[in-house]
């Protein structure tokens, strides 16, 4: 990497952080649109889950099952907090790890499937999660889990680092900062992954699994690793989402959400790590903006989506970065 590229990159990261942590809150304050905090938190959390889906795409699997892990992550956090009185902050990584562990169990058999087979099974997986949530007693069936307390304070050596969310005048401001911080961390982690040797091994898997195994790559293990990271992200995103909503039902994440996660990745462009963020932002705001069109909302939304695919079949990022193709 040349110093020049390094400079551009640091400037890009700096600009991103300034926009997310300073410019957006200032703009919201100026426009008196505090409702946007909730919207933008949602975008951040959905981007995290979509980022996971993107990683499964990166190893050459079409994943339409992220809704399942978002749901499971949400339930794990909700159950730990309400039934076991655990702190939200501990439940968050546990939710992610639970999803990662579950995805290892599920992934070992189903990752042998390719193409549409894998896509179809993961779609079915979302339904399995929903039906399990309905049938099990620990998830409280169709009634779901409600009145989940807001995250408490984080203290270290008697020093309060993060105050309890209830102490904020506007709870959603706290959730906004939480969501975008986690999003920035997750995508930094993803970016590092893709640009490290691990990422190149994943790319080798996508290109040709037989060739990869012939040179000694443990293909099944690498596949499961990617899927576990993906599901971890889904679980974390789901868990924070549930904390914002303070409730979770079997229908909190459905097949539609799974499909949307996939669409976010496609729209952002599968060759770009930050594609899922852009895709989520555009799709979510597009959907919100169309709210005024009332009954025509879905028609216009899907119509525009079809047009976009026709005009830019390789994603939005392909517009901005025509020369920097995935290498």
């Amino acid at each position, binding site marked *: 990497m040349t110093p020049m590229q390094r400079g551009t990159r640091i400037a890009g990261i700096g600009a991103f952080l300034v926009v997310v942590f300073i410019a957006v809150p200032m703009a919201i304050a100026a426009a008196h649109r505090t409702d946007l905090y909730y919207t933008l938190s949602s975008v951040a959390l959905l981007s995290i889950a979509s980022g996971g889906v993107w990683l499964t795409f990166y190893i050459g699997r079409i994943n339409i099952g992220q809704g399942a892990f978002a749901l499971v992550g949400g339930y794990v956090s909700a159950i730990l907090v309400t039934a076991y009185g655990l702190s939200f902050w501990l439940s968050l990584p546990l939710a992610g790890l639970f999803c990662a562990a579950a995805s290892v169990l599920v992934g070992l058999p189903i990752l042998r499937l390719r193409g549409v087979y894998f896509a179809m099974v993961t779609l079915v997986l979302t339904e399995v999660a929903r039906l399990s949530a309905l049938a099990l007693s620990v998830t409280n069936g169709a009634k779901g889990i409600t009145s989940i307390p807001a995250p408490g304070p984080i203290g270290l050596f008697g020093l309060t680092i993060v105050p309890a969310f209830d102490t904020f005048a506007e709870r959603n401001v706290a959730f906004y900062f939480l969501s975008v911080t986690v999003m920035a961390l997750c995508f930094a982690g993803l970016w590092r992954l893709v640009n490290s040797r691990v990422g*190149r091994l994943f790319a*080798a898997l996508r290109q040709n699994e*037989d060739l990869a195994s*012939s*040179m*000694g*790559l443990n293909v099944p293990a690498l596949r499961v690793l990617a899927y576990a990271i993906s599901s971890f992200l889904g679980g974390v995103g789901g868990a924070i989402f549930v904390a914002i909503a303070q409730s979770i039902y079997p229908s909190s994440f459905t097949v539609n959400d799974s499909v949307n996660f996939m669409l976010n990745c496609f729209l952002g462009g599968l060759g770009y790590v930050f594609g899922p963020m852009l895709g989520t932002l555009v799709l979510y705001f597009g959907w919100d903006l169309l709210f005024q069109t009332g009954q025509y909302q879905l028609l216009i939304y899907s119509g525009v989506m079809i047009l976009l695919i026709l005009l830019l079949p390789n994603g939005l990022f392909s517009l901005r970065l025509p020369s920097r193709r*995935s*290498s």
Partner: protein
Amino acid sequence: MAPILQVKDLTKRYGGLTAVNEVSFDVEPNEILSVIGPNGAGKSTIFKLISSFVKPTRGEVTFNGEVISGLAPHTVARKGVVRTFQETTIFKGMTARDSVIVAHHLRSHASLFGFYLGSAAARRDEADFGRSSDEILDFLGLGAVKYEIASNLPQGHLRALGIAIGLAANPKILLLDEPFAGMNADETSRAVEMVRAVRDRGVTLLLVEHDMAAVMKISDRIVVINFGVKIAEGTPAEIRANEKVIEAYLGVEDETIGL
């Protein structure tokens, strides 16, 4: 010297069809051994059986005295039995050099996590892989095109790249899948030189091929398969004189015998 690879009573049935039937042969260290036969004779099944991409119905393959059949393909590769593919099987979006660097994975000392964090061992590995890749690419005459996207390379270069990827995995024995298929005489003789050079690096070679002329030129020994059964084994001269072989090949139209 003890054989490096032994194939014993190898049998593979698909449903009612016996693709390979009780085939046995040994591969000596540092030799070039070719398995030949008419199309559909079961050569490629043998190839997949040895590289463990397919599990045998019966029989076994041993490498340095250790049974390798039934192991996962990447485990077999890890032990030093590495296969190549025909030219269509490469990492399409990557440059030639990146493909070879990725293929060095077996030589890494750092863990995946080390690579993720960029540990000292990982940085050392990366530097080693880069150097070694450049050496291998130069060795196979790909030095000038190493920054090209692999799928843009012409066929001859792709074949060489396949071998380069195989060499990167540090093989003791390299299995080549029809390395001369679809080549003209000129290209073939260059490829023959390349295979010889690889052997001179101390790598044992097992080829599956049906271009007889090239096989005769390059092989130390030849195993002939027909209808899934071994019908002959010996030096090129012996095979040339073998009546069963002549019969098998004359029975098939459109086959270059090159006797």
